[in-house]
């Protein structure tokens, strides 16, 4: 919350926002290039201004909070559900007790906004004549379309499936991400003026030539990685082997499958857990997830894994299938090899090494390999592909391919990743395409310092809360029972329950934010932020440093003369230092002791009446 608002006693204090930032830019023009961001925002691949929407939630301004999120990306509700939320992992509050429940707050805000929204957003007027075609209506494609539309480009998205959404629609199961949520968010994009053409398969129904002839000047290929990776062991052809992505897509399309009693899912990612949990829901009696590394290395969301375990999914680690044994063309068992962990590989995880003669059998009726996805390259021009024709190649930072005007990104370029990373790719594509059209150097935009469109700029993570190792850890007794912080780590179903709880809880949670970043940059006017500031009387200061110990924001430091100095950019005006200064050398600019005393006097007079 903006400090000035608090003390002006106005309810629209949030409008006073951006001051710090403005001031910072004024103070140091280079800060445009070197963005000082709070850890949450710095961690977000899509550059969502987390601190800002948390600040708005603190005031119960959920709609505005969502608006802030939409500045950066189009999927607040989706990310509020399925994002692996690096923002939350980066939250400074975790150094004190536990992180602020950012994802939950985002979800809550998005849901409230969706429910309260009673009119469609105004379409964005087209200001460019160059049309853009987006191939694939997954998160990457849609994000690119969203950003380009906001920039005034006419955009059409081509999707081969019956509905847009890509993995969000066909990959993530319903209990994690309800279809209507996806639909609503895509609807929002369409409302802005993006056209989505479904059931159009690229390479079959359309191709670059036809599209060019239709006037499209640029293309973003974001077809995702829709084919499951094969296990590469004998017996894969047997009946009862279902590949996760295709299998999940089928389920999403409403197909039914007979799984039998025993299901073994192979893999450790979210898809594997999804497959395992769905298997249970579909009636399997015994579901095992077999992962070749240990729990530590598992890429799936921990809370999902926990939920799966709670539901009865068994997790077997450090085993890898050697072959699938069939009986009558049907899966009967899997022979596993036991693994041990060797040296870390390129991904930083420890590489599993088979232990010789450790073969053993697991009975299974169904085997679901979920060990990764690859791109379907059929129908793509070879110029887009690598030498072996197995993957798309493009410049990883500008997303340019070898074909002029054709860009590619998302899972189809980098392999399967998360929604938020796909959003990042989409945003980047939009930026590149914009530059492509406006003849700005695409390859150099990194240095241009345009921060408004999510272009990659040099980001310096700052938090005003002191360096973690100097923080005195909050003692256990202070981590009380008032708020069950653990609940933000709940599974999606539990989160659902919580959604029913009041918004006040959310507000309380939002208030735990330390506002450790420079400025909330909320939706306010860009007038100078003028929070209360501590002032040091240097003559009185003995340099005892208590203020620096107490200040949560490291806003006070001693200078060379060993006298305390306030960094006004960092000071949030809490005044604890002033109340504690042993030399009484600190006063507050706006609310000095004298002011409080005067208020007390007034209050006492008032009370006497």
């Amino acid at each position, binding site marked *: 919350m903006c400090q000035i608002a608090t003390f002006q006693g106005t309810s629209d204090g949030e409008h006073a926002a951006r001051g710090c930032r403005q001031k910072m830019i004024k103070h140091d023009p280079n800060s445009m290039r070197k963005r000082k961001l709070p850890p949450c925002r710095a961690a977000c691949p899509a550059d969502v201004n987390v601190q800002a929407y948390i600040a708005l939630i603190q005031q119960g301004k959920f709609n505005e909070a969502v608006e802030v999120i939409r500045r950066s990306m189009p999927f607040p509700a989706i990310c509020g559900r399925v994002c692996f939320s690096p923002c939350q992992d980066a939250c400074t509050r975790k150094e004190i007790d536990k992180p602020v429940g950012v994802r939950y707050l985002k979800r809550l805000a998005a849901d409230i906004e969706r429910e309260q929204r009673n009119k469609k957003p105004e379409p964005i007027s087209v200001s460019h004549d160059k049309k853009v075609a987006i191939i694939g209506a997954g998160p990457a494609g849609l994000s690119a379309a969203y950003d380009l539309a906001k920039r005034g480009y006419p955009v059409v998205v081509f999707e081969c499936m019956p509905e847009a959404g890509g993995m969000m629609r066909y990959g993530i199961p319903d209990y994690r991400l309800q279809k209507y949520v996806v639909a609503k968010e895509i609807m929002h994009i369409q409302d802005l003026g993006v056209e989505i053409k479904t059931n159009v398969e690229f390479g079959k129904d359309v191709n670059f030539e036809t599209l060019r002839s239709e006037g499209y000047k640029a293309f973003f290929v974001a077809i995702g990685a829709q084919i499951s990776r094969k296990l590469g062991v004998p017996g894969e052809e047997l009946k009862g082997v279902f590949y996760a992505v295709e299998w999940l897509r089928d389920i999403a399309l409403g197909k039914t499958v007979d799984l039998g009693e025993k299901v073994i899912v192979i893999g450790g990612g979210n898809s594997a857990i999804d497959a395992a949990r769905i298997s249970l829901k579909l009636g399997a009696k015994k579901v095992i997830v077999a992962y070749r590394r240990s729990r530590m290395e598992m890429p799936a969301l921990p809370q999902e894994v926990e939920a799966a375990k709670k539901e009865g999914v068994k997790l077997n680690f450090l085993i890898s299938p050697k072959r699938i044994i069939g009986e009558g063309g049907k899966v009967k068992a899997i022979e596993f090899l036991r693994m041990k962990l060797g040296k870390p590989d390129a991904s930083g995880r420890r590489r599993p090494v088979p232990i010789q003669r450790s073969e053993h059998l697991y009975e299974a009726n169904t085997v679901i390999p979920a060990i990764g996805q690859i791109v379907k390259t059929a129908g793509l021009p070879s110029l887009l592909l690598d030498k072996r024709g197995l993957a798309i190649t493009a410049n990883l930072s500008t997303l340019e391919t070898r074909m002029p005007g054709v860009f590619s990104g998302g899972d189809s370029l980098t392999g399967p990743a998360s929604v938020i990373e796909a959003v990042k790719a989409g945003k980047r594509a939009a930026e590149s395409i914009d530059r492509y059209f406006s003849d700005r150097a695409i390859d150099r935009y990194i240095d241009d310092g345009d921060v408004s469109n999510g272009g990659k700029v040099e980001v310096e993570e700052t938090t005003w809360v002191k360096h973690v190792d100097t923080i005195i850890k*909050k003692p256990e007794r202070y981590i009380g029972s008032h708020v069950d912080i653990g609940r933000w780590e709940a599974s999606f179903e539990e989160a659902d329950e919580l959604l029913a709880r009041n918004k006040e809880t959310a507000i309380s949670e939002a208030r735990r934010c330390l506002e450790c970043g420079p400025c909330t940059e909320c939706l306010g006017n860009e007038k100078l932020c003028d929070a209360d500031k501590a002032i040091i009387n240097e003559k009185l200061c003995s340099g005892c440093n208590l203020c620096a110990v107490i200040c949560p924001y490291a806003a006070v430091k001693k200078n060379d003369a060993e006298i305390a100095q306030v960094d006004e950019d960092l000071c949030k005006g809490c005044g604890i230092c002033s109340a504690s200064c042993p030399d009484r050398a600190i006063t507050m600019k706006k609310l000095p002791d004298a002011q409080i005393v005067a208020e007390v006097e007034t209050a006492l007079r008032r009370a006497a009446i």
Partner: protein
Amino acid sequence: MFRPRIIGFVCNWALPKRIEIPSFPRMKIYPKMQVVQVMCVGRIDPVIVLDTFAKGADGVLLVGCPLPDCHFVKGNIQAENKTKILKKLLSLTGLEPERLQLEWAYATEIEPFSTIVDAFRNHIIKLGQSPLVGENSDEKILSNILAAKNAVADFSLRVLTGREEELTEAMNAYGKRIPQEEFDDLLDEIVNREFLRHKIHLLTSQKLLSVKEIATIVNHRPALILRQIADMTSKHMIALDHVEETTPLYKALEVK
């Protein structure tokens, strides 16, 4: 009926007054307590609290966020430690320490907040009017409160209060944690010492006094007073003015 004058120093983050959630009833606490809103309950300098009492408040209620949830991390812990010192001091002044209370509340939960205010108000009603109010206000307590105010304005108590959390919860400069009880004993000793010294200072700033006279006023053994004067002299708080017969008279020096 006695209407107590209660001043509430309430943390901005704990004060439910501006929550714009339609379902919230508007607060009804104003008639019961005069609220001075601050950024954090840790903002309240102990000097202000004692000053508030000196000016005639019947009760002072500090309200902050519950311990884990301070927006400023540990402002509430600072407030807790300051309140502890203040209560110790109040008990020395003769004013009931219960007239000061520190409570936690959530901005979002109005009911507990109201309960806190009501309970405190009722307690103050039970205690009755502050002895510092009215025509027959207790000069002695008032002067004690002023001495206490000077004591909390002085370096020693402030630095100890400020560092308490660090010393008792984390570690001191020698890598050791000071057990809370030990620290509290030390605080007691220093609170007593500082209060007495500032009391002597206040008395001698009004009038030249001898050790014996001071001892009678503060009701301590003269030997203890002499000891304090010796120490205060070395700290330039007090000086010998002149000797009358065999009796040295002391005057307070202005503390710089």
